[in-house]
């Protein structure tokens, strides 16, 4: 008689494991993939470089102008205030591009490679697969494309212009995480609709570029686009009267995209 290979089976479970079965293990797997990949360093280096250079732009411009015309009064130079330069650094929105690039390719890459089918054949739900990608990508991008570059930028701003208010820095960090979360959702949603990674990213960037133009044509529209969330928490923390429409629209759009893309994923034929 040959020895048993697999031994006893566990008792069959006839009920569902839950809407997010396997999510914890999938988040751990997706986060490990992030931590082991080179992407994390590329994003950190790129975003930090853009933010620091943009923040230092006023200081550099002042130095160049002073060197070009020594002794003359300097006119029409950018502000050297720490708050303006701290906020100004984020206007590049390079972290949004990073989020669209990364999240837009996540589902397509796995679908093309066959690993999505492999995972989907296991006792996990498609909602778990989607949620794990959202959680790990939002968390990692908020740290390596948000918190760390922002902290470095705040240090550079302090060195060049003086210390920015702490509530502004905290508010910008929160806003940056909120915008990152939105564009990760947006990228994942596009990945469930558009076949091919390149087409997904191109569509995402096009919509990202067109949205402010369309919003500008509508009175009050600029406060309703998701990127308005970037400065909303900082302004609220600074005591400015802010419309609640901005976070409400941000949340509703994000939740809508999430529900839509999870439903799309459930229909995937793998």
């Amino acid at each position, binding site marked *: 008689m040959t020895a048993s290979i697999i*031994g006893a089976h566990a008792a*069959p479970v006839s009920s569902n494991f839950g809407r997010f079965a396997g999510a914890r293990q999938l988040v751990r797997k997706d986060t490990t993939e992030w931590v082991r990949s080179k992407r994390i360093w590329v994003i950190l280096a790129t975003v930090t470089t853009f933010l620091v250079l943009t923040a230092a732009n006023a200081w550099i411009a002042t130095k160049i102008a002073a060197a070009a015309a020594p002794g003359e009064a300097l006119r029409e130079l950018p502000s050297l205030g720490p708050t303006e330069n701290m906020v100004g650094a984020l206007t590049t929105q390079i972290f949004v591009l990073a989020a669209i690039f990364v999240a837009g390719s996540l589902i397509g890459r796995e679908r093309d490679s066959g690993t999505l089918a492999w995972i989907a054949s296991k*006792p996990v*739900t498609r909602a778990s697969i989607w949620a794990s990608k959202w959680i790990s990508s939002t968390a990692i991008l908020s740290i390596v494309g948000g918190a760390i570059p922002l902290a470095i930028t705040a240090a550079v701003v302090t060195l060049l212009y003086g210390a920015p208010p702490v509530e502004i820095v905290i508010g910008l960090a929160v806003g940056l995480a909120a915008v990152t979360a939105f564009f990760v959702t947006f990228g994942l949603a596009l990945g469930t609709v558009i076949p091919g990674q390149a087409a997904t990213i191109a569509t995402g960037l096009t919509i990202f570029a067109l949205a402010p133009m369309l919003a500008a044509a509508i009175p009050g529209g600029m406060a309703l686009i998701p990127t308005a969330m970037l400065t909303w928490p900082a302004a609220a923390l600074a005591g400015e009267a802010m419309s609640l429409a901005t976070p409400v629209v941000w949340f509703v759009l994000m939740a809508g995209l999430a529900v839509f893309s999870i439903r799309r994923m459930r229909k995937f034929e793998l």
Partner: protein
Amino acid sequence: MTSASAISTAGLTKHYGEVRAVTDLTLDVPSGSIYGFLGPNGAGKTTVLKVLAGLIRPTSGSASVAGIPLAAGEAYRREVGFLAQEPRFYDWMTGRETVAFVASLVPDPATSDPAWLDKIIATVGLADAADRRTGTYSGGMRQRLGIAQALVTRPRVLLLDEPVSALDPIGRREVLDLMAQLRGETTVFYSTHILDDVERVSDRVAILDHGHLVREAATAELLSSFTLDQLRVVVVGATDATGVDLAGLPGVRSIEPSARDGDVRTYLLTIEPSVAGQIQRAVTRYVADRDLTLVENGLVRLDLEDVFLRLVDSKERAA
């Protein structure tokens, strides 16, 4: 569905618009059996396996594993281990991490026991490569890893899509031996186009063609059903009249001289299966009466490839 069915399908159908991949497939796969799923390319084998793995939805019909319906989602997939035709894994994980990750997806601590993981990795012959990244694995190693990850959750049913197609002869034999060892422990439902392998290890076979089930039977029964209608007779000292005489024996439908070597002649008699024994005795008497030497007087045993071709060909002619 019978109580001993590991897999049961009823009227399973998958159509993609005008393309009818699988139509009205009804199967009962006995628990603990090794079940070969045969068919030419495009017959719909992979579609059936993907439906059973929960990767695509059937257009109509139902399927269940161990009594749990496909619609139960993750509870159903808990009972299934699946190996795709071209298995793909995360190339940044090692083989051991891949198996451990799959094991962690079921709520049973025993499946994540390191000793169990070591055993399953060793069983498929990957112990030496277990700590290498899967991105460095050959096709054969990926196939072995695929079997390990399918087995690690101790599923009631193993669904294997062409499990030996990427393997060299030694690897093929090892995997087939492993499948044979699993007999009685779990149900192995696998597709292949290598008919020798099916004949060696399968308890039952189903033949699919153009999305329709052509035949389903125990392997031995299927083979024997095609061995009773042909008789090979080899006679020394035969003349041209011998063939005519043999064709005239009661129960012989037709005769075909298949070889001639000097005065040794070989005849293939197509006969009435129900009177095979009588015809064999009549042949023996005929040869003895004429002082000829009878070298062979036996039923022709077809291999599975012959049976497969006959079944598929007859269906194509009927179509």
